């Protein structure tokens, strides 16, 4: 029956295809429910008069209509003996899944509550950055946007360099994916922030737990996934302009994006750009000398369709200069100890300035990608993507002789990455939906002499498959995936890629299995368990040098083996009306976790003696609890709270009893933190005039008392509470929506230091920062 229906649809489709160059390949899949009970309505008849198409829902309220045209106005009419006639105007732009809620013989009709593309949903723990929070923090940096999510914190080197930390892990252990391309920079460095312009993203999702199957070896602890807004489907122009200003650092940001859909064609072109400038930030008591920053980013995208093909081209360039706090620059251990003991930063220029002096970083990142999709059959789709990335990171240190010094950097990393992805994906087929694919990666890193890491070539090949099962109204959903990655790295430590002296290769399996059980339409439980791994990075294999910021001498180890993680997440989700409660417990067991082990010896250098740390491996366990709660009170008030708790330890050789092991806390684990506050909102929340919201949040970070046995260079900072305020108001200006916003960080202007900020040795965190923003959307 199913087959003959498909055939019939196929026949209907054929003439449409021949007659119109327009894309009429879209499908609508619907679930019909009774609105009060939430029970599916069986055997309702569905028709779309404009398309001369119809269907009858099955016993589970499911129906499927294919051969709909892109961007055309349709009316969906549903009739059922027990219900009022239902009709709704609809315009679809991609394969769409929708819920329709019918009422029992009354005049009321309910509108769509859920609309989403047919892309495979994940059975993994995820957090999505709220729209309001994204708008409020986007002008600052990506880290600031992400750290409001439960289970996500940042690893900072001052206020301007922030790296996301997911459930305690960061850098090479997570992936950052922007517009479908996994970012390839010098992620290994703790002071290397992601090269991302948050204004290119319309949606940011943090995937928690082993995400290696979907995002490759390395996404061991999760992934940050940024997606741009879909390209404009209507003819003509559209876009937005955003302007923001901040009092701390007297910073300004300007960003704009415009889409042009060519008349009579399927082609849309987007141009986007962001310019940003800020001066020295100020802690409550002093300016933070040399913390100015500037950024200039551009991106372009184009997408078009032709019968069964979909194409997308994208290019972006990221150009950033970041001043590094002058007071953080120390010559040797004595200097570092003096700096740590001093309550105020030493060698600090306590004045406002936009200038960026040495030490500073200058980072360029260019990306080009081409993606194509070919609709093989009604159900099967072939996708291909090629991406090229070039990353150039230049680090300018303080030089001894200003008179003779050139403008050359002291370190320059250049990294070229090519990736090619080919995949086949299918729509639900016997209730299974998923795909399989291959990926090839090629990478060349050039540091030149004197670098911290060697030059290398890497080649990699991966193969993956992922499937998901759902059969409504069965309360179970399942997801399975597996992947094999192979990486081969040829490195040289003598500065010339002609003389390869080390060859390492690693291969391993990643796997994921997830299940969702829907207790009711409001409550679901998700269990995900996965295996992930990552090969040791070149810095862990070959590092040899003094890490001045940390005051340590670090030495790599060429015989390190890959880290293997077994990660499990259990999530409870309760959603009813406007109440949402999400609780996640997780455990991540990492075999051969790579860490820096203190040697209790000193390495003598011309700048004095530095404590030696060697890279070592031991088993580690990270476990924790993330929660987010949003409860409506009365009068548009909501209570919001987020909690992130984490414990991480490794098994260390016991120094007392030979051959015994003991638990030792892992260094740099985020302290427990709690966010709580009130939000007041008025209006529909969907960008209509008069929408207003105000949110006052407090964030309490506890003192990290679980520190490694060897102690810390400087004791962990005390607990603190910061206050923040966000507000937004929407109105119309010449029929164009204008959103105005106010955000205040560190409202009480308190002095505090963060455990996960390397500059806690030298200076306080920035004080109060008032931001004002405006965003004007045009072109409807």
């Amino acid at each position, binding site marked *: 029956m199913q087959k003959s229906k498909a055939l019939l649809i196929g026949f209907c489709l054929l003439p449409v295809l021949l007659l119109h160059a327009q894309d009429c390949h879209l499908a609508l899949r619907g679930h019909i429910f009774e609105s009060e009970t939430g029970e599916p309505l069986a055997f309702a008849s569905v028709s779309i008069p404009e398309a001369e198409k119809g269907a009858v829902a099955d016993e589970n309220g499911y129906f499927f209509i294919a051969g709909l045209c892109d961007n055309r106005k349709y009316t969906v009419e549903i009739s059922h003996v027990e219900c009022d006639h239902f009709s709704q105007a609809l315009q679809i732009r991609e394969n769409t899944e929708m819920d329709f809620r019918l009422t029992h013989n009354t005049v009321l009709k309910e509108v769509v509550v859920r609309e989403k593309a047919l892309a495979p949903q994940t059975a993994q723990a995820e957090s999505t950055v709220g729209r309001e929070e994204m708008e409020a923090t986007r002008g600052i940096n990506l880290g600031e946007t992400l750290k409001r999510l439960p289970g996500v914190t940042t690893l900072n080197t001052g206020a301007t360099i922030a790296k996301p930390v997911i459930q305690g892990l960061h850098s090479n252990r997570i992936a950052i994916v922007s517009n479908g391309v996994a970012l390839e920079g010098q992620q290994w460095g703790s002071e290397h922030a992601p090269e991302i312009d948050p204004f290119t993203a319309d949606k940011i999702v943090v995937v928690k737990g082993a995400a290696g199957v979907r995002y490759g070896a390395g996404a061991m602890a999760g992934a940050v996934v940024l997606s741009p807004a879909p390209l404009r489907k209507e003819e003509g122009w559209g876009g937005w302009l955003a302007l923001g200003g901040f009092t701390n650092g007297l910073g300004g940001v300007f960003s704009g994006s415009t889409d042009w859909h060519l008349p009579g064609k399927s082609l849309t072109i987007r141009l986007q750009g962001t310019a940003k400038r800020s001066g020295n930030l100020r802690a409550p008591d002093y300016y933070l000398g040399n913390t100015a920053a500037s950024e200039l980013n551009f991106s372009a995208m184009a997408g078009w369709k032709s019968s069964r093909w979909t194409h997308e081209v994208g290019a972006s360039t990221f150009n950033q200069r970041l001043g590094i706090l002058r007071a953080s620059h120390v010559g040797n251990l004595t200097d570092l100890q003096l700096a740590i003991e001093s309550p105020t930063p030493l060698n600090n220029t306590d004045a406002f300035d936009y200038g960026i002096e040495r030490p500073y970083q200058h980072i360029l990142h260019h990306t080009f990608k081409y993606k194509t999709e070919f609709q093989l059959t009604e159900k099967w789709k072939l996708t291909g993507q090629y991406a090229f990335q070039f990353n150039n990171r230049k680090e300018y240190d303080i030089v001894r002789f200003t008179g003779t010094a050139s403008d050359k950097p002291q370190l320059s990393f250049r990294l070229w990455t090519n990736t090619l992805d080919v995949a086949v994906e299918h729509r639900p087929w016997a209730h299974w939906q998923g795909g399989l694919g291959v990926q090839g990666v090629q990478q060349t890193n050039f540091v030149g002499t004197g670098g911290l890491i060697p030059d290398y070539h890497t080649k990699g090949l991966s193969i993956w498959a992922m499937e998901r099962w759902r059969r409504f109204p069965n309360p179970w959903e399942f997801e399975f995936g597996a992947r094999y990655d192979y990486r081969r790295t040829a490195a040289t430590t003598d500065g010339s890629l002609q003389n390869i002296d080390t060859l390492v290769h690693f291969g391993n399996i990643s796997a994921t299995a997830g299940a969702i059980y829907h207790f009711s339409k409001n409550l679901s439980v998700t269990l995900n368990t996965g295996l992930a791994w990552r090969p040791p990075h070149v810095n862990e294999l070959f590092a040899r040098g003094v890490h001045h910021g940390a005051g340590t001498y670090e030495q790599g180890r060429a015989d390190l083996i890959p880290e293997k993680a077994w990660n499990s997440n259990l999530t409870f989700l309760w959603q009813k009306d406007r109440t949402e409660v999400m609780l996640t417990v997780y455990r991540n067991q990492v075999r051969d976790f790579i860490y820096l082990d203190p040697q209790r010896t000193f390495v003598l250098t*011309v700048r004095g003696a530095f404590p030696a740390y060697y890279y070592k491996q031991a088993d580690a366990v990270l476990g924790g609890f993330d929660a987010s709660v949003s409860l409506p009170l009365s009068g548009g008030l909501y209570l919001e709270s987020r909690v992130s708790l984490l414990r991480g330890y490794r098994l260390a050789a016991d120094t007392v009893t030979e051959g015994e092991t003991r638990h030792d806390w892992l260094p740099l684990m985020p302290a427990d933190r709690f966010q709580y506050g009130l939000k007041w909102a008025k209006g529909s929340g969907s960008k209509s005039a008069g929408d207003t919201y105000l949110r006052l949040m407090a964030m309490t970070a506890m003192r990290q008392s679980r520190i490694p046995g060897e102690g810390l260079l400087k004791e962990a900072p005390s607990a603190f509470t910061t206050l923040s305020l966000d507000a937004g108001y929407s109105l119309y200006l010449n029929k164009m929506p204008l959103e105005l916003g106010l955000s205040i960080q560190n409202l009480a202007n308190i002095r505090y230091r963060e455990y996960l900020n390397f500059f806690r040795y030298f200076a306080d965190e920035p004080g109060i920062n008032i931001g004002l923003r405006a965003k004007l959307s045009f072109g409807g």
Partner: protein
Amino acid sequence: MTYTTSSIRTLLSIAVFALFLFAGCKDNNTDTEQENITSIEIDLAGFNINQKFYWKDLDGPGGNPPVIDTIVLPASTLNITGRLKVYDESKNPVDDITEEIEAENTAHLFVYSVANADLIIEPNDTDDNGDPFSLVTVWKAGQPSTGTLNIRLYHEPTDKMNTANPGGEADFDVTFPVRIE
């Protein structure tokens, strides 16, 4: 079909745009500039002494440990002139950094601290502002004894009079064994 031609045209213009982007990144800064102090030389002259002592770590931090001479002086010797030289021997030809330090003498300060040995080292020069610099010093050895001599070079010191803590940052911080016999 005009459709195809125009989409090819668009693709081309995008390619040109991309080329422009990537052409922009071809900077000429192919090499970097590293400053490495590998060697410190102490030249001692006067009072029948004409000797050089070295502290050398040619392969930089880690790897082979530094090679350090023991400063041996006869007891009861006065008015020895000490002069420091600083080299980067990782470069070819060897880079004599001393000249650059002298050229920027107001931004540099050498500090000497002796432990246990009966040795007194006093400045014998000043910088262009008349403040301490101490590249050239006068040494006085007393009774037979052993100990250490620590020499530091400070860059951009904030208080040149306070030799215990002049501020700025240490460019080098080396320690020699000392024997007076």
